């Protein structure tokens, strides 16, 4: 009798574990949305979601007559968690199209995973490591949000010529996206004649920057900072408390709205910081303004969309346009959708966006400077637009590939 009961219990448990996948109605399309909803980049992930939802609301949540159903997946910025979340979305929830992930190495890991599922179409979120698309790309991975080196277009030259910085130290997080950003900055800065005597790499989620701050040479003209979210705020606060006074040059996500909206004295340090990126807050083209207005309708939106919102918006928008063109039909293993996506070209909030042969975007970049708006909020004031930057930064592809894989020690100009 006792055994019998146990058997029943175990049987019940086993059946529960197999949870049959539910059948869904045919007139809806499932899109997976992968972003960092946990960990140090949570704030960024939430803003990415707002961007994606902005694009979805533009079309009223309906594409080609089918209702779009968003299935969310969460990662914590580590490549493992991104792949686990992508696996769940693809293998359990059965999505055929997926938007994401957010962070650099996540993108490389998801690209590798994409190769094992050619029938699923992967559209990048905001991950901006160079090698997601440059070396060994996946045929079903598309990036409409450009990469971190492209984002730096114009900054190195501006810092050297206009600001007069000859010697710059860099502080950046220790993974592929900041490598790409530092690469993009140094490519121009070193070419112009500047030197970078010291590069500090810190782990994501680092709290104590005292040793990093102590290691920055005294005689540098400026510090190039590429830290995101909470890391950026922590470094800037501690640098100021330590009495640091060198002017800053910002990586794209360092002077993003996710950092500029933080409270405290770091605001004073940040004003006047030059930076470059795919967006500029004071861009006054009607397309950008319309995007900002649409974005602000999202719950808990920032005063101005961050570049994560912008990248997720572009990627989601491009995907929705392509889905619309193929009539929402992905039954052919996504073939038609992927062919259409590769040819998508449109005028986004920041100008024309189109893809190159590696399915990486070519788009306008914005050189900016932090300034205080009339309402007391900090904004990235537009200084200059660098039109249609491609992934090889205008160089020939083989020449560009010869520069080597971005990393801690490449490039170097001490």
């Amino acid at each position, binding site marked *: 009798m*006792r055994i019998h009961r146990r058997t029943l219990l175990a*049987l019940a448990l086993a059946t529960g574990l197999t*949870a049959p996948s539910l059948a869904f109605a045919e007139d809806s399309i499932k899109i997976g949305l992968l972003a960092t*909803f946990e960990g140090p980049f949570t704030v960024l992930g939430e803003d990415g979601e707002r961007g994606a939802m902005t694009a979805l609301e533009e079309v009223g949540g309906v594409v080609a007559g089918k209702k779009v159903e968003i*299935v969310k997946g969460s990662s914590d910025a580590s490549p493992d968690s991104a792949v686990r979340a992508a696996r769940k979305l693809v*293998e359990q929830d059965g999505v055929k199209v997926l938007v994401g992930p957010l962070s650099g190495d996540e993108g490389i890991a998801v690209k590798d995973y994409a190769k094992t599922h050619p029938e699923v179409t992967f559209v990048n979120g905001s991950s901006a490591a160079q090698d997601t698309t440059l070396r060994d790309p996946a045929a079903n991975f598309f990036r409409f949000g450009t990469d971190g080196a492209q984002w730096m277009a114009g900054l190195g030259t501006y810092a050297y010529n206009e600001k007069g910085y000859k010697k710059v130290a860099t502080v950046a997080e220790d993974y592929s996206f900041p490598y790409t950003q530092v690469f993009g900055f140094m490519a121009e800065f070193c070419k112009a004649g500047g030197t970078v005597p010291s590069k500090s790499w810190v782990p994501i989620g680092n709290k104590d920057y005292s040793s990093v701050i102590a290691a920055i040479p005294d005689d540098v003209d400026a510090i190039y900072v590429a830290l995101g979210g909470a890391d950026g705020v922590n470094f800037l606060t501690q640098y100021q408390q330590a009495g640091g006074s060198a002017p800053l040059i910002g990586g794209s996500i360092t002077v993003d709205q996710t950092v500029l909206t933080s409270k405290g004295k770091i605001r004073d340090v940040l004003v006047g910081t030059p930076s470059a990126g795919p967006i500029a807050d004071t861009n006054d083209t009607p397309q950008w303004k319309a995007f900002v207005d649409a974005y602000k309708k999202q719950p808990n939106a920032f005063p101005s969309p961050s570049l994560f919102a912008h990248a997720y918006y572009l990627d989601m928008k491009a995907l929705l346009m392509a889905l619309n063109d193929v009539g929402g039909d992905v039954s052919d293993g996504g073939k038609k959708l992927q062919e259409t996506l590769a040819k998508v070209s449109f005028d986004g909030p920041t100008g024309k966006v189109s893809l190159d042969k590696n399915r990486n975007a070519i788009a306008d970049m914005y050189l900016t400077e932090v300034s205080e708006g009339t309402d007391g909020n900090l904004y990235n004031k537009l200084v200059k637009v660098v039109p249609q930057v491609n992934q090889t930064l205008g160089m020939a592809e083989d020449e560009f590939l010869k520069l080597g894989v971005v990393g801690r020690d490449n490039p170097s100009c001490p």
Partner: protein
Amino acid sequence: MTALAPTDKPAAQSILEKIGAGNIVVLVLLALYPAVASDFFLTQIGAYSLILGMISLSLMLLAGYGGMVSLAQISVAGIAGYTVAIFGLNNSGVHGFGWPFWIVVPIATLVAAGASALIGVISNRTEGIYTIMITLAIATAFFYFTQQNYSLFNGFPGYTGIRAPEFWGVNWRDPMPFYYLCLGFAVVAYAAVLYGSRSTYGLTVQAVRDNPRRMRALGFNVTAHKVVAYFYAGIIAGLAGVLLVWFNGRISPGTINVSAAINVLIIAVIGGMRHPIGPFLGAVVVVLMQTFAIDIVGAERFNTLIGLFFLVIVFVSPDGLLGLWGRIKPHLAQESLRSGP
């Protein structure tokens, strides 16, 4: 299960009784599980639970029988994983000597067991909460070390493209073979712990847990017994680490960070530390929660739900799910008395 060879003393016991009918039923059900499960449930839930269960089992072995709560078991598994990546093949372009798996796996397991024993030596003089502190410190230090060391651990991105071996015409990373592979390892580990706990050595370790001073006075080498327990736990965690790296196809500091270390403890606590089945029960519950909580409450609050759920389990039953079962069982037995013929 076969490890439980019947001993000659209580001759009246049949093999069936010795192994326990419950264990056999569970094993048969687990063996039949692939017949009903989708690929996702087979690997991402089934195999992953078995792997995490094994890592937690190594903690349960130390904590349940030895009274030593080590938070560094995930680091031990990680060491095995990194060893596989370094000596086997990877596509990160760092190391990857390409040795065959039948050399790499024993090496990885032994390196992990050695590291575990070393952790045992280091934390030997501590007790209770101080053991937790020192092993947490080791786990944290190892995490940051792997994240910043590029020559050996390849830093933040870690190693990718690590493949499970293919032999006997089977790709062992295909869902069904991989599930059975994990099940096989888990069953061996489970049976070994169950058998070991009743052996002379196992009983000695439990006696050391209860009264180290008396054991020392009786002439037992308390230190050696504890370190050997760490070594055995390291073998189990190491094997699990090998499976984990085959499962993910990659290993990076994210695999072994502090939250992963805490996760292993949560699994053991949720499941219960009195019996080796506890960690596996806990692993199933934790993996299911972590996979599906986001579907229940959405992306913003799913970690809160996971936390609340665990809190409820621990609040209702301090001994975890096993304790819950222990409390229900007498009721069931009584009921069967009443309704029985």
